[in-house]
Structure formats: structure tokens, C-alpha cells
């Protein structure tokens, strides 16, 4: 089987994008805008490593971790016959290998590096039962050929992954993932809960690969695959079913036996990953790179145009220089710490924090009330399962709302600051959304968990809270919430040795006691959830603040540099001879035409690639 059309096209897109970015870099260098050239250099580097996030989900004990290990060809995820993964494990390419955990210690999140062989102590039920170490995320960087293509695999916790709070967490994360790998084993057809989960997942993440695992074990796997295809068709769900055997794959890797490897189904699985999923991600990153190139070129064009205008009408030069200098002065003022926009930003963040806290408190109060009401009739132990499931789901929804609130609050703030700058006479370009976030940098250190090094791979801008990273944080928080243990009220039996009348009284009394106990448990759980959420949201808001501030400050600096550059060029121009001027003017016209053409072509390519994307 040759590479598919879409894969070829995706490769083409990358080649085209690389060509245009390089042309953009050349233009920037030629016009002595090293700052813009630098930015495009980064864009080109990212093109070579497009980031794709795959979320691995499925029922308990279907072989999720085995699949992840088989894909990366290493025993990174702990696998056990009995116990299962208790926290999110997230793998990407890194050489040399490294493992880190982000966990809570006395309520404060910390990031620690751990030895690779100790991963199981944090990520499995065996080493970390019920996640008592309060690990949010285990992060593993591995030198792996498969991951080097820009893949990030997120292995979800196993127990009851398709239900209750855990399912909510998965569904909350999925919009940020490029694709879902759904794992189901070949022992039986897809079950009703599995189908339910898939249907919901498809709404938020349209690309799904279904891995039918353990085909080395079940003789009837082909029939099961057929039945599953039938179920998918019956519910009108897309999704390719790919039969695999992780046992055979690991055996093949150990023996370096290509035949067993083929039989394991993994070569076909990886091809499907490349053509079906990676190619989409490539097209996206190609289009983003073209976009960025176009923006840099536009900045260049502005400055060439201004200069050209001065040549066309030298009398306007003085006025222009005056205007530009004025603007520069304003920019310098804007860069001071007391500038109005930064006050607006600071106040806005304080308001946002308060608003979120208020909203959280009232949500938790409402939940308490709702569950209190539910407890007022009936025996709480009889409905305990559904009660706790509903409780978890409600808390997860609250968490999700809180994050939505932070995002829309951030958008709002960005708009307000842009307005303010505009009213100060500055046209700032729209906030830049950077492309693929490098998840590997996310948790590098605790106090800068989201931070970018200057112009680092995360890029400056709001996007860091919008893209995958936000999803990962949200997923971490949600899994943590889902991990908060809800105590079980002690089942108190009713004795049969009493007389009938006595039994009824006794039962009433016991049920009242259970209700009280349940109420206390619910309160404790909700309080803990509130504390957790409040802490995480404060951190996120703080991050938003820093990102916005840096982003605006950078734009102001960039604009300032452009202006100084233009002013000095104009001043230089005014000091030249007629002959030189003529030559210069001709050059500028030529440059203008070149830039205009290049921008036009870049945009056209970008649109072409976007038009082909799903």
C-alpha cells in the first residue's frame, strides 16, 4: 500500500510552506528586519515538527497502556494483568528520555523529575492506589521514531474511563486532541456504554481510530471486527477499525522479527496514523506557517510603502517624520509600567478572579442545595451509585464552565486592551494565535508551568490558554476531581429480630442517620472540589495575565522598532542625492511589487491548503 493521496498532499503542503517561509526570511533579512526573520525561523522549525495530540481512551482493561507501549516501542506505560493506570500519562518525543510528574504537595502544584523506571510508582494503581500521591499528570519524553514525527500520546486513566466524571474529563479534553484512538478488545462486540461514549466523542473530535486489540488471543476477532463495523454503520458513525496485537508487536521488537511485526497489525496501524491523522495536522501547521509569513511580509510592506511615499512626495517627509515620532513617543509611554492599558489589564484580571470565585461559590452552593433536596426523600444508600456519579459529573461540568469562563474573560480583556490601544492611536494587529503548542515545555518548572521562553515554541499570545495546553490542564484538573475519593456511607442493616412495628421505627431512624452521614460526605467532597478548582483557576488567570501583558508589550516593541527603522530610513533618504534617490525609489517600487506578489502568493497557497482541510 503506497502513501495515500492525503498524505502526499500533506507532504506537499509542508514543502510549499517551507519554501514560502524561507522566501519570507530572505525578504526580512534583505530589508534588515532581523527580528521578523527570527520569528519566521521559529515558524520554519515548527514546520519540521508539527505537533499532533492523540488521546487514547477505552473501557477498563482493554489494553490501552499496552497499545501506547506498542506504538512507541518501549515499556513506558506500566502494564499489569490486574491493576490499571491511575493517572494521565502523556508521552512525546525527547532525547535523552526524561520523566516528570506534576503533583500536588500540601495543595501546591509541584513538578518533579522522576527516574523512568519509577513511572509505575506514580501512574499505576499498584504504585499509587486511588492516586493518593495526587499526581495530575505523568509526562514522559522518549526518543522514539514514531513520536519524533510530532506525535503526543495521552494515555487516559483506565478505571471506568467511559463513565461518570472520568468520561466527562475525556470528553472535555477531546476537542483539544487531533484524534481519538479508541481501544476495545477482540473478546466481544462493542458494548452499549462503548457505543454511547463513541457517539459523544465523535461530536467533539471527528477523527477516530478504533484499535481492536488482543487479536493474538481471540480466534473470532475477524467476526468481532465485522460486527463492530456493523454497529458503527448502524449508528452512522465514522471510524476505521484497525486490528492489532500489542503482545505480538512487543515480541517482534524484542526479536527484531519483521514478520511477527507485520502480523501484529501495528505497521498498518501506524500507516493509518500517518495518513489519516498526521497529514491533517501537517496541513494545519503548513497553513499556520504561511499565515505567519504573510503577516511578517505585511509589516515589511508597510515600512517600504512609507518610504516610497516620502520619495513620491518629499514635501510630506517632514510631516511624516513628525507623525511617526509622535507615535513613537506614545509607544514609549505605553511601554512604561503605569500605562493605562496595563492598568486596564491588571484591573480586569482582578475582576475576572473575583467573578470566577463568585461563580464557583454559587455553583457549589447550588449543587449542595440540589443534592440536599435529593436526599430529603428515600434511602441514600439505595441510590448511592447514581448519586455519586451525578455528583462527579456535576463537579466536572462546573470545572469545565470555569475554564470556559476564564477563556471568554481573557478574550474580553484582550478586546478591551486592543480598544484602549486603538483609542491611543495605535493599530495593533489582532492577537496572534500561535500554532501547535509544544506540550513538552509545559511543565518545565512549577512556577512557569505555561511559560514560554522569549519567542519560544509556545509563542506569545492568548493561544497558550486556548490550545492543547489548556486541554491538558483541564484534563489534569478533571481527573484530579474525578480522583477525589467519595467515602461510602456505612451500610447499616436493619435487624429482622425485632417485631414488625419496631422494625419500621428502627428503619426510619437508620435512614435518617444515613442521610446525615451522606450529607456530610457530599459537603466534604464539594468543599474539596471547590478548593481545588479555585486554586487551579487562579493559576490559569495569572497565566492569562502574564501572557496578555507580554504579548501586548511585545507588539508595542515590534511596532516601535518598525517605526524607528522607518524614521531613520526617511532621514537617510532626505540626505541623499537626486541620482541616489531615483535609484532608491526604483528599488523601493521593485521591492513593493515583490512583496505584494509574495504576500498574494502566500495567501493563495494558504487558502488552497485550508480549502483541502476537513
Amino acid at each position, binding site marked *: 500500500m503506497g502513501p495515500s493521496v492525503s498524505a502526499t498532499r500533506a507532504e506537499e503542503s509542508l514543502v510549499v510552506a517551507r519554501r514560502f517561509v524561507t522566501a519570507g526570511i530572505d525578504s526580512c533579512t534583505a530589508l534588515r528586519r532581523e527580528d521578523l526573520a527570527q520569528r519566521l525561523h521559529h515558524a520554519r522549525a515548527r514546520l519540521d515538527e508539527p505537533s499532533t495530540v492523540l488521546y487514547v481512551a477505552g*473501557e*477498563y*482493561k482493554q489494553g490501552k497502556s499496552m497499545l501506547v507501549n506498542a506504538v512507541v516501542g518501549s515499556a513506558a506505560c506500566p502494564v499489569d*494483568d*490486574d491493576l490499571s493506570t491511575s493517572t494521565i500519562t502523556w508521552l512525546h518525543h525527547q532525547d535523552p528520555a526524561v520523566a516528570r510528574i506534576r503533583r500536588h504537595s500540601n495543595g501546591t502544584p509541584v513538578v518533579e523529575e522522576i527516574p523512568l523506571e519509577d513511572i509505575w510508582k506514580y501512574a499505576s494503581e499498584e504504585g499509587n492506589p486511588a492516586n493518593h500521591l495526587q499526581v495530575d499528570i505523568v509526562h514522559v519524553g522518549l526518543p522514539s521514531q514514531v513520536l519524533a514525527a510530532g506525535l503526543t500520546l495521552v494515555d487516559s486513566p483506565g*478505571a*471506568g474511563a467511559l*463513565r461518570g466524571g472520568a468520561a466527562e474529563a475525556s470528553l472535555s479534553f477531546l476537542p483539544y486532541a487531533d484524534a481519538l484512538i479508541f481501544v476495545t478488545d477482540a*473478546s*466481544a*462486540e*462493542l*458494548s*452499549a*456504554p462503548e*457505543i454511547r461514549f463513541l457517539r459523544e466523542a465523535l461530536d467533539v473530535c471527528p477523527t477516530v481510530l478504533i484499535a481492536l486489540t*488482543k*487479536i*493474538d*488471543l*481471540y*480466534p*473470532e*476477532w475477524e*467476526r*468481532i471486527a465485522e*460486527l463492530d463495523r456493523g*454497529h458503527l454503520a448502524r449508528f452512522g458513525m465514522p471510524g476505521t477499525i484497525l486490528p492489532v*496485537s500489542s*503482545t*505480538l508487536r512487543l*515480541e517482534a521488537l524484542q526479536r527484531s522479527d519483521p514478520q*511477527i511485526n507485520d*502480523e501484529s497489525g501495528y505497521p498498518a496501524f501506524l500507516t493509518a496514523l500517518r495518513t489519516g491523522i498526521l497529514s491533517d495536522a501537517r496541513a494545519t501547521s503548513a497553513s499556520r506557517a504561511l499565515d505567519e509569513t504573510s503577516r511578517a511580509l505585511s509589516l515589511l510592506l508597510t515600512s517600504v510603502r512609507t518610504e516610497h511615499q516620502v520619495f513620491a512626495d518629499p514635501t510630506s517627509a517632514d510631516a511624516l517624520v513628525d507623525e511617526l515620532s509622535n507615535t513613537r513617543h506614545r509607544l514609549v509611554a505605553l511601554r512604561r509600567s503605569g500605562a493605562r492599558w496595563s492598568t486596564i489589564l491588571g484591573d480586569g484580571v482582578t475582576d475576572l478572579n473575583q467573578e470566577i470565585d463568585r461563580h464557583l461559590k454559587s455553583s457549589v452552593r447550588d449543587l449542595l442545595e440540589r443534592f440536599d433536596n435529593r436526599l430529603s426523600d428515600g434511602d441514600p444508600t*439505595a441510590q448511592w*451509585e447514581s448519586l455519586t456519579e451525578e455528583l462527579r459529573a456535576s463537579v466536572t461540568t462546573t470545572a469545565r464552565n470555569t475554564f470556559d469562563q476564564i477563556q471568554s474573560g481573557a478574550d474580553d480583556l484582550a478586546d478591551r486592551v486592543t480598544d484602549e490601544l486603538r483609542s491611543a492611536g495605535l493599530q495593533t494587529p489582532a492577537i496572534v494565535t500561535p500554532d501547535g503548542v509544544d506540550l513538552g515545555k509545559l511543565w518545565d518548572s512549577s512556577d512557569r508551568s505555561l511559560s514560554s521562553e522569549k519567542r519560544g515554541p509556545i509563542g506569545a499570545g492568548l493561544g497558550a490558554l486556548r490550545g492543547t495546553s489548556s486541554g491538558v490542564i483541564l484534563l489534569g484538573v478533571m481527573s484530579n476531581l474525578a480522583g477525589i475519593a467519595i467515602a*461510602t456511607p456505612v*451500610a447499616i*442493616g*436493619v*435487624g*429482622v*429480630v*425485632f*417485631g*414488625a412495628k419496631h*422494625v419500621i421505627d428502627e428503619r426510619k431512624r437508620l435512614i435518617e442517620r444515613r442521610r446525615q452521614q451522606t450529607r456530610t460526605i457530599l459537603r466534604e467532597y464539594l468543599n474539596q472540589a471547590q478548593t481545588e478548582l479555585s486554586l487551579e483557576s487562579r493559576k490559569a488567570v495569572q497565566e492569562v495575565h502574564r501572557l496578555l501583558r507580554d504579548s501586548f508589550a511585545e507588539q508595542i516593541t515590534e511596532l516601535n522598532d518598525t517605526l524607528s527603522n522607518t524614521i531613520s530610513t526617511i532621514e537617510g533618504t532626505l540626505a541623499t542625492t537626486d541620482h541616489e534617490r531615483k535609484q532608491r525609489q526604483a528599488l523601493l517600487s521593485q521591492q513593493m511589487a515583490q512583496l505584494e506578489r509574495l504576500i498574494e502568493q502566500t495567501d493563495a497557497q494558504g487558502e488552497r491548503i485550508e480549502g483541502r482541510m476537513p
Partner: protein
Amino acid sequence: MTDVLLDRMNRLCDTAARLTSDHAAARTVSDLRTRLHEPLRVAIAGRVKAGKSTLLNALVGERLAPTDAGECTRIVTWYRNSVGYEAAAQLRDGSERPLRFQRGERALEISLDGLAPSNVDRLEVGWPSSRLVEMILIDTPGLEGLDDESSARTLRFLGLDSDGTGDVDAVIYLMRHMHHRDADFLEAFTDRSLSHPSPVNAVAILSRADEIGAGRLDALTSAATVAQRYAADQRVRSLCTTVIPVAGLIAETGATLREEEMAALRVLVAMPAPDLDSMMLSVDRFADPSRSPLLPQTRRDLLSRFGIFGIRFSVGEIREGRAETAADLSRSLIAASGIGQLGDLLAEHFAGRAKALKARSVLAGLKDIARRLGGDNRESGEELLAAVEEFESTSRELTELRLWHLAVSGVVKFDEDDMEEIRRLTSEGSVAFRLGVDGDTTNPAAADVALRRIEHWRARAEHPLTGRELEEACEIVARSYESLYVETLGEGP
């Protein structure tokens, strides 16, 4: 010794019949009474593909229930002991229709004769089998399959839908992995189908144990660890007596192993060892035509009969010289499968308490009838309810079930010696056996033992540090010894 419990139950049914004589419930009462004289009804339940039919076949020792990799058992089917072979459909409208059937290679093939499955309430299969004498085994459609109709049917049958009490006395619940749906199921079953929630009538099986751990040779050891962990879990203990691992397929094949299958295995073992090992890496390799002199169809048959684990295991047994004949291998398979432990468990927990368990179901049914009697019959209803509740609080067997519940569910913590004593005391054995003395009640030590035990348990009940539940449990034990003491006097020389 006369059967006190049965007599009393009969009298209670008389009362119920009198109170409902001019009411539609009269028929239900008569059905309930019949139930007292029938074998214990044991349902095999669990999620889709948990291996219910395979287990049923393994328990009966014949391939009766159809097994299939897809969802196949879609109608509740009762298997009971009978003189001749027969099959019939009980229809929803209450009528019965005999069905044609033949004994197929893989299962009993029953023809529905054009009946729509939705009109069929259940299938009844009569089969002469000593294994069905003490229990009626009931195969149920899997829960949570995509076929919602049959899933709903199982719930209705077990009494888990919104109304109704169950038709069964006890349940063997098969789970492949413990996730909370399984616990839900057990909880619902113990809650609603019985008068008091209790694990006394439910055992759980970690089924398809051979598949845990990717079918490696240590799969069953792994499965035992998993089962132990489940069984130690307080939540599980409050739902079922215990959890044991059973490899149903291995048991079924062990019980029905054929000579030609053994011959085929011998051909395999004769192959060069590296070739055979490489062939046993996966099911596809095993069925690959180029890999062995055996016909591919024969190998596919072996796979469906043994599974890859069963083949690896059998090859090992033959290679090591532990199985030279089909009979040897059959024994090895059965021993490895864990079905023997299940048999012991059923004998102890179900068959050994059959009378009390049946009484319990019938009482629940009567209570249900009493609650439904309204309007003009309200007074009858109240009278019936009072009679049932009085019965429940005074019957030794039922209070002992309560004791057993307290002990096994872990509500009351007893040590192993206590548990052993309670197990013996609450069994349906002879008075001497229950007292733990040799011989029969003529043994002069018997009365003495009874008195000493009464004293011991009373003292425990009255100890100031004893909690309410423990006090209740100790009281029940003391009272059981009291009734034994009375019997030692009555049956004295």
C-alpha cells in the same frame, strides 16, 4: 426429623391462599407454593460475553446452551432435571408450547417454530442430569448488550425492573473485570429481589480467567490474584459471598473432551518444539494452513474449544507427561479451570441453604402480594404482611441467614475460627454435625457443648464493648445453640 421450616411455610401459604381466595393474586400464591417443592433456582447472570452459557455447560457437563462469540443467548432459558428430554416455550400469554429440538455438535438446537422471540417469556429445557437435581440452572441474556430488548428482559426476569420480585433464589454473577456496573448489578439484585439486602445468595465469578494476562501460561495465577483482591474489597463483600476465578471454556472442554481432540493435540506435540511454540504465538498463526500437518479446520475447531491458553496449557501437560490419555487431560483441564471450587461453593452456599433461600424468595413474593392488596382487600393485605413479618423474625433458618449475611458481608468482623463455627452451625447438617461433636446426639457431650456455646456467645453479646450488629449476631448464634440444645434433650436415649 420433620421439616419444620417447610411445614411452617406451607401453613403460611395456606393463610395467604385464604386471604387472596377471591383475588387474581391467588395464582401467584399457588406458584410460590410450588416453588417451595422445586429445586433451588439459580440464575447465571452477567454482562454480555461474560461466558454465561459456557459456564452453564461446564456445570452440567454437557454442551447444551448455545455459545457464540457474538451475543447469542437472547431468551431466558431454564434447564431442569427431568425423566425424558424435552423443550418447550412459555409464552407471554401464559400458555406453553412444546418445541422441536435436536442435539447439535456444539449445543442443543431448539427450533422456535416461527414463534417471535418477543412473544416468548422463557424456554424450558428438561434434561436428565444428576447435576440438575439440586438446582434449576437459568441462562440469561447478557446485560448491557446492544440488543436492548434482551437486556431489558434479563432485568425484568431478575426482578430488577421498576416493579416485581425476582423469579430466582440465587445468582451466580459472572464478571470479567470489576467495574462499577457489575457492582451496581449485584447491589440491585440483592436489594430488590430479596426481602433484605444480602450477599448470602450471590456468588461472583471472575470469568474467562484464562484470558487475563494475555493467555500466558501463568494466566490463572494472575486471575487468582485479581479474584482475591476483589474478594477482599469491602464493597464486593457486601454484595456477594466471595469471588473466585473460573476458566469456563477450559472447564467445559475438560468435561466434554473427545478422543479425536486428544489425537490432534498429540500430532501438534510431535512437531519440532520451536515450530509449535512459534505457531502458538497467536491465533492467526495457529490457524495458518502452512504451519502444521493438521487440517486448518481441525485447528480452528481446537481454538474454539480450548482457546489459545487452553492449547498452550494442554500442550504443556502432554509435553511434561502429565497427560497421556484424554481422561488425564480432561482431569488436568477441569482441575486448572477452577470449576471444582465453584462446585464446592455452590454446594456450601446454595445447595446447603436451599430451603432457607427458597423460603426467603417465597416470603418476598408474599410480601409483594400483601402490598398490592388494596381497596376492599386492604385488611387482608395487612394481615398477610403481619404474618410474613412474624415469620421472618421467628424462623431459625431465616435469622441464621441474617447471621450469615452479617458475617460474610463483613458488617460484623469474625475471625476464621468463628466463621468456621458459624458455617457449621448454620449448615443444614445433623444436630451433632452442627454442634461439632462426633457421632450423633446420643453423644452425651452434645448437650454439654450446646450449653457451653450458649454461655460463650451470650457473654460476647453482653460484653459492654460489643457493637449493635455484633450483639445481634451473637444473639442469633446463642439462640441457634439453644434450639440445638432443645433437640439434644428431645432426641436423647
